[in-house]
């Protein structure tokens, strides 16, 4: 595994929410103005900290959804039922509110615009967030690296960034495939999970310069990463980020 050098003390900084966009019934994009933001790489995350009036605090990690273009960054949060932090970010937080963050963090699950090799992005649910940052960085930098996104969602209404993705797909820079696990839109007969056949048909075949990024709930990442390795991808070129519950006690 290659090394990345990002060592610098991270401090909490307060941003202001300037916009909130409804992505799906349960996901929101939060646009934050952060005057002291040091910049980030596509794929990095930050920690969000909430403080109650009596000083009680809770923090969680969120991927950065936007490319670094200045002092504005975007996060996209999917509400976890019964969660502590995500319901606040999705339902309570308003435009004009302050929000404390610390970051960026993580130097491995990142894509740099000077990397020329093809990029295969495979996301499940809110796992598309850091992948979207990579696609945005790809567009922003006018990268000519071939890029594909395979995006697994339950149903058409669960698609995050639907409008942005449609635009990217039309621009020919990105090859986009949706995988519907519960309910497909009219005209799209396949309902089911990502499997070997689908990867063979829609994902890049392994090459020496291909990097694959897989992000989503743990069972999704485990299944997809195992399929990729079985299909001959070099494990060292498959980068993963897992978030969310495992769905079982172990």
């Amino acid at each position, binding site marked *: *595994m290659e*090394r*990345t*050098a*990002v*060592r*610098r*003390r*991270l401090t*909490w900084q*307060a941003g202001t929410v300037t916009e909130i966009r409804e992505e799906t019934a349960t996901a929101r994009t939060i646009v934050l103005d952060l005057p002291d933001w040091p910049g980030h790489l596509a794929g990095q995350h930050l920690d969000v*900290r*909430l*403080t*109650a*009036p009596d000083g*009680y*605090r*809770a*923090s*969680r*990690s969120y991927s950065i959804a936007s490319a670094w273009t200045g002092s504005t960054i975007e996060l996209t949060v999917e509400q976890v039922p019964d969660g*502590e932090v995500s319901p*606040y970010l999705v339902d*309570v*937080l*308003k435009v004009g*509110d*302050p*929000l*404390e963050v*610390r970051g960026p*963090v*993580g*130097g*491995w*699950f990142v894509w740099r615009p000077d990397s020329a090799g093809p990029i295969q992005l495979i996301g499940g649910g809110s796992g598309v967030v850091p992948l979207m940052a990579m696609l945005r960085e790809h567009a922003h930098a006018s990268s000519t690296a071939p890029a594909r996104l395979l995006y697994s969602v339950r149903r058409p209404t669960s698609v995050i960034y639907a409008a942005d993705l449609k635009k990217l797909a039309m621009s020919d820079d990105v090859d986009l495939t949706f995988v519907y696990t519960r309910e497909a839109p009219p005209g799209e007969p396949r309902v089911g999970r990502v499997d070997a056949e689908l990867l063979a048909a829609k994902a890049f075949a392994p090459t020496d310069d291909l990097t694959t990024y897989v992000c989503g709930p*743990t069972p999704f990442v*485990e299944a997809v*990463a*195992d399929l*990729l*390795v079985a299909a001959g991808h070099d*494990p*060292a070129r*498959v*980068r*993963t980020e*897992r*978030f969310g*519950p*495992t*769905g*079982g*006690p*172990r």
Partner: protein
Amino acid sequence: MGIVSPGFTGRRRSGTELPPGQYLTRDFPVLSAGPTPHIQPEHWEFSIATESGEVHKWDWPAFLKLPAEEITRDIHCVTRWSKLESEWKGVSLDTLFADVETSADFVMAHSYGGYTTNLPLDDLLDGQAWIAYEFEGDPLGAEHGGPARLLVPHLYFWKSAKWVRGLVLSDAEDLGFWETAGYHEYGDPWKEQRYAGD
């Protein structure tokens, strides 16, 4: 001094027994940087290499012959979940280091799949660390680092290298995989040493 988040009250589900900033889970989340390596025990080998180049090696049958301990400890992940009283079986590093002659202060743990993490040797000895191969009565699953992982419960869990294959001793401290990517070089959960400089 921090800012107050308008309308946030919080759940306060984390008990007082948890390090700051952690919440309790019954789940056992999986976090790793790449695909899960599937290492067959018959291909597994574990080694300790000293600063003078001496190498101590165990294959799976030799490893299983070493005296094992049952370990019950709380574990804390830097992504903020903690799991209380997790039950493991493994070989104490005191046992593995019994015949190792070293005056080195630092260790780099190396894993199948290429992962590395750095630790002070003092944190691995005196009943503080194990090479674990069972979790809650079953062989350790591959996604959790099976067939065997390092277990150093008093540090954030990324130090407990999954799929561990060896320890390399040295006089100077070097940084491992996450430590190079911005995480703290030591990682004490009680001091909230999450990121470099904390």
